[in-house]
């Protein structure tokens, strides 16, 4: 009895002693994290209330105002910043495309390549390959593809239209193809084409991993029950992939909100194809308007949090149940 109490005591003291060690180890990374992530985040909030130009001393507390927010959202009788409206709209378009196109295509490809078709490994690698390229490389490659006169896309379009016109006289051959990146109405969609090309492989890999982890006995049971291919997918496989789908959707949303690189490379001074991150960058670094840039950054962060917090909350809650 006495020995047990002694042991328990020892255990408690040991536990208490151990409790300090992780914090001690965490101290350095936490300090760095606070210094490089937490502080700048909050400082952005502060800057968003100033008209700091990135050079002059940072305005003091007596110079704070919501002018930047009023200008951005068009409060107090102003019209909302046109560039903001365009960029925000583009982020929404980006998100809608990312939530639908690469997700379905990625899932479809995963379903195909999860079977034993010939060359599946090779196809998987080819679809995954764009992911190892940097965005700058992807942007540059697609700029060549989209080049209006000599680019492969327009060469094909013009060539096909000319061949068709020879066969069917009622088709007038095209002199030249669309301007793609040069056309303000097409630029965003052209960039999205490149973005989707990359994203499909990513989604495919996530779903392939999910498919590999499915319990074969459930599939077997469904097969014994006489489910056909589509029923199997619709009633068994897709529901089982639920957690993966959540991850894919969250990643798609996050990726579409943080899109920057491709737009920056393919239409450096975009305008019509800008997303919020590019708009922020141009205002802060091209226009010497760090205050206004910070306002856009805060807005972008808030938008991301609206989407991410429910997800984090859900994840944390499910984790606690274990």
């Amino acid at each position, binding site marked *: 009895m006495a020995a047990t109490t002694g042991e328990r005591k020892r255990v408690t003291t040991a536990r208490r002693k151990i409790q300090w060690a992780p914090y001690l180890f965490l101290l350095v990374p936490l300090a760095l994290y606070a210094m490089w992530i937490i502080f700048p985040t909050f400082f952005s909030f502060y800057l968003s209330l100033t008209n700091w130009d990135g*050079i002059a001393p940072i305005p003091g507390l007596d110079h704070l105002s919501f002018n930047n927010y009023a200008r951005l959202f068009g409060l107090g009788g102003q019209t909302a910043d046109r560039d903001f409206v365009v960029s925000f709209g583009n982020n929404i378009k980006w998100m809608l495309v990312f939530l639908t196109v690469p997700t379905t295509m990625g899932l479809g490809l995963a379903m195909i390549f999860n079977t034993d078709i010939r060359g599946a490994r090779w196809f998987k690698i080819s679809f995954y390959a764009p992911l190892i390229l940097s965005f700058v490389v992807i942007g540059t490659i697609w700029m060549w593809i989209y080049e209006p006169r000599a680019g492969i896309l327009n060469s094909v379009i013009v060539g096909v239209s000319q061949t068709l016109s020879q066969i069917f006289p009622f088709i007038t051959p095209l002199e030249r193809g669309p301007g793609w990146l040069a*056309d303000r109405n097409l630029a965003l969609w052209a960039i999205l084409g490149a973005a989707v090309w990359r994203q499909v492989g990513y989604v495919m890999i996530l779903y392939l991993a999910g498919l590999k982890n499915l319990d074969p006995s459930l599939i077997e049971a469904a097969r014994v029950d006489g489910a056909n291919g589509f029923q199997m997918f619709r009633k068994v496989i897709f529901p089982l992939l639920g957690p993966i789908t959540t991850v894919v959707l969250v990643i798609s949303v996050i990726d579409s909100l943080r899109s920057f690189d491709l737009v920056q490379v393919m239409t450096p001074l975009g305008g019509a194809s800008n997303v919020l991150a590019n708009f922020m960058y141009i205002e802060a*670094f091209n226009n010497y308007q760090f205050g206004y840039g910070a306002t856009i950054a805060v807005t972008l962060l808030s938008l991301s949090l609206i989407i991410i917090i429910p997800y984090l909350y859900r994840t944390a809650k499910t984790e606690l149940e274990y």
Partner: protein
Amino acid sequence: MNKLFTRRAAFVFALVIMIALVGSVVAQDEPIIRYASYASDPGAREADEALVAQWTAAHPDQPLEHNITDHEAFKQAIRTYLVADPSLDVLTWFAGNRMAFFVDRGLAADLTPLFEREGWNDVYAPGFIALATQDEAQYFVPTSYYWWAMYFRTSIMEANGLTAPATWDELLSTCDTLNAAGIVPITIGTQAPWTAAAWFDFLNMRINGPEFHINLMRLQESYTDPRVADVFTYWRQLYEHNCFLPDSAAYDWQGGLDFMNRGEAAMYLMGGFITDSVPEEIQSDYDFAMFPVINPDVPIGIDAPTDGYFMSVNAPNPEGAYDFLAFLGSQESQQFAADELGRLPTRTDVDTSNFTEAQQKGIALVQSADYVAQFYDRDTTPEMAEAGLNAFAEFIADPMGADVAALLESLEADRVRIAAEIEAAG
């Protein structure tokens, strides 16, 4: 034990190296001159490096650290360079509003003593001294300038029985003739829309006169003034006559030039640096002329941007910076840059007798103008320039369909806000 010893040895070894590295950085009190430049185009880079080599050969006791950054990246990085302490010593930059921006924020060193020491007030052309001066002190060493003009391929023009258009009607009919011959009349690359700003500058100066133009640049005239709308009416006529390269936003300025180099396009409104990117063997086929006259009653204005150098206010080596600036602004250096690059000198004592025909013509062009402007993004504030360039890009993306009135209203809103901010900042 042995293992422990090796580990300790490795640790001590690493420590020694670290201390040595830190020590070498700290002990670097040798007076280095740090010089940052944006001369990243092939020709300009060569000349810049040659100047540095000349300095190093002549001043072995004053070593120089030279670093060249891409043009567009430099424009963004310079603010970080300037606010750092210690900063860099000498930097390349643009005259006009871009320089004033740093002077206003106290980031450029007062170079008045240098101008006096070197006697520059007597040998620099007065217009350039004025350009270097702000609040009665000199902050900028203007060392060269170049002209903007209508460049054309002589062979293409001659083959079609054309000469450089001198009036608006001639310009439009030139477009028609060239189009009929299957040649793109005017090439332009508007991926970065400053090339379009040149069109705005010249059209505005030719239609409304340079005085209105420069007041607009100074945010003293309204963008909703009907005179600004006129500029777009004329601009649109050029698109009605299919004067410009289609899909120009897909090309940067050099991409636009490729069409001309290949003989597929005839003309380009461009700065004198265009020849830096023209192959040697066809350089002689390139000629230029003054932008056509539109309203003969207004004075002739021209864009002739001035480049030069300045010293950071936080320069760690001000003595070295002074000496190096004195070298860059010297007669020898300007002579070298003029001979090598074909830029025009700002000093009056540079020997122009050996200048090429193009240089002589360029000088005559600038001297024949009644007013010399810098350029849209150098004459107006950086923020207004960005708004204006975006509006031009939007216009040329769809010149027939663009809602010019709405574009101009948006620009006017920007102008009013920016002017108020400048006023508030005092």
